[in-house]
């Protein structure tokens, strides 16, 4: 019973304190790509940990041996023993159901999110077909509107949308920077990164790790696109374009400032010279991200392989006695 307990403990650590640590680390915005990978790894690792904890409950620890016949015999014995005790069957069933429920919930949320988004996009494209004009020089459509805005509709019929006020607000180089930013979103399929994060947040509301991941990822994909735009023009042009759009995009409703902090962070980040992570730190970050993903697998397998060093039957009895107490 060690593996499930350890995995559940790990799940709690990943769900609550880990996102706080990750949010505080300053290197995330220096290299948004690694930052995105880190948050995704945290989310994936948490889901994996919960799944494995369920599986570890469902399946008794099987002594790990390279002798196949021996292995199967041990499996059969362990299972028979597990189901011979009423408590054991209940624990197994709970674990299996929990793992299945988590999988089903994630799958459902993701499907629902993607289908809903596709429907919404298609509705918007239809509306745009009536009111928008293709831009004369760029691969974008223009809508007559007094509020400056630029956004993109991802998907098969990807489309960058600009308002006429945005065209007035931006000079040519700033417009090019904005378009490069939007193209970076489209080419990088950033909407899928956010869709996955959204799905997890909706599937398990109240889990700090998923909530924090969603917030962090939405600003990290913007930074990633900012960096792409800065490579095409320069950082100060991108920052200026951001501010110009904000100045001309004022809405009378003051309640919509959700993105404010993230926007200020982006501008501050752009006006400072780029400080990409050094090779050493990049390697360390990549290794840490990999370790984050590998940890639950290791913890799920380690007790079983440790059990493999003991005689099979003895390992089984120890499991079942642990259960009775």
């Amino acid at each position: 019973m060690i593996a499930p307990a350890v995995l559940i403990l790990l799940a709690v650590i990943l769900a609550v304190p880990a996102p706080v640590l990750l949010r505080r680390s300053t290197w995330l915005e220096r290299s948004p790509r690694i930052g995105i990978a880190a948050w995704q790894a945290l989310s994936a690792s948490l889901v994996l940990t919960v799944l494995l904890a369920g599986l570890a409950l469902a399946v008794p620890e099987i002594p790990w041996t390279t002798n196949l016949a021996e292995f199967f015999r041990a499996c059969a014995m362990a299972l028979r023993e597990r189901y011979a005790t009423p408590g054991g069957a209940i624990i197994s069933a709970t674990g299996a159901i929990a793992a299945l429920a988590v999988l089903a919930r994630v799958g459902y949320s993701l499907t629902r999110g993607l289908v809903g988004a596709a429907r919404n996009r298609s509705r918007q494209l239809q509306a745009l077909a009536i009111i928008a004009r293709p831009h004369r020089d760029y691969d974008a459509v223009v809508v007559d509107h007094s509020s400056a805005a630029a956004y993109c509709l991802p998907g098969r019929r990807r489309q960058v949308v600009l308002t006429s006020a945005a065209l007035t607000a931006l000079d040519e180089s700033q417009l090019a920077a904005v378009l490069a930013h939007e193209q970076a979103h489209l080419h990088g399929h950033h909407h899928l990164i956010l869709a996955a994060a959204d799905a997890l947040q909706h599937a398990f509301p109240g889990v700090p790790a998923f909530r924090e991941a969603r917030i962090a990822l939405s600003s990290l994909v913007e930074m990633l696109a900012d960096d792409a735009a800065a490579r095409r023009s320069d950082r100060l042009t991108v920052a200026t374009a951001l501010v110009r759009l904000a100045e001309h995009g004022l809405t009378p409703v003051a309640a919509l400032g959700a993105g404010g902090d993230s926007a200020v962070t982006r501008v501050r980040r752009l006006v400072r010279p780029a400080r990409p992570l050094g090779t050493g730190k990049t390697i360390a970050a990549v290794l840490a991200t990999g370790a984050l993903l590998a940890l639950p697998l290791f913890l799920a397998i380690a007790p079983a392989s440790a059990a493999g060093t003991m005689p099979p039957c003895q390992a089984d009895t120890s499991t079942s006695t642990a259960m009775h107490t």
Partner: protein
Amino acid sequence: MVRQLGELEQAVMDRMWSWDHPVAVREVLEDLQRGRNLAYTTVMTVMDTLHRKGILTRHKEGRAFIYRPALTREQHTAAFMGEVLAGGSDRTLTLLHFFEQMPAAEVARLRDALDGRVQDETGTGQ
């Protein structure tokens, strides 16, 4: 085909919005036919669709329907963009905003962040 219908919808609405009076399908068809060859039923279907979408309103006059835009072009565009900018529940999934709409105080902070750099530059230059 979908794309062609989209273009046709745009062509119809362009005319409906530029004309200041309610019209029958026949009138739109005759104007559209100056540019291309179209069947009456095609234009009728498009206008029926626009009516179903709530973009056109219509009433019966004799045997034919008379159509007019539900909103002016400006109103229609403002309604659409207002919805986009205010954001539906799943805005983040649909669009990636270059910039969130933000209150004036936030914009002032942004400008300060940008000016900070400019001042730094002049400061070090002296």
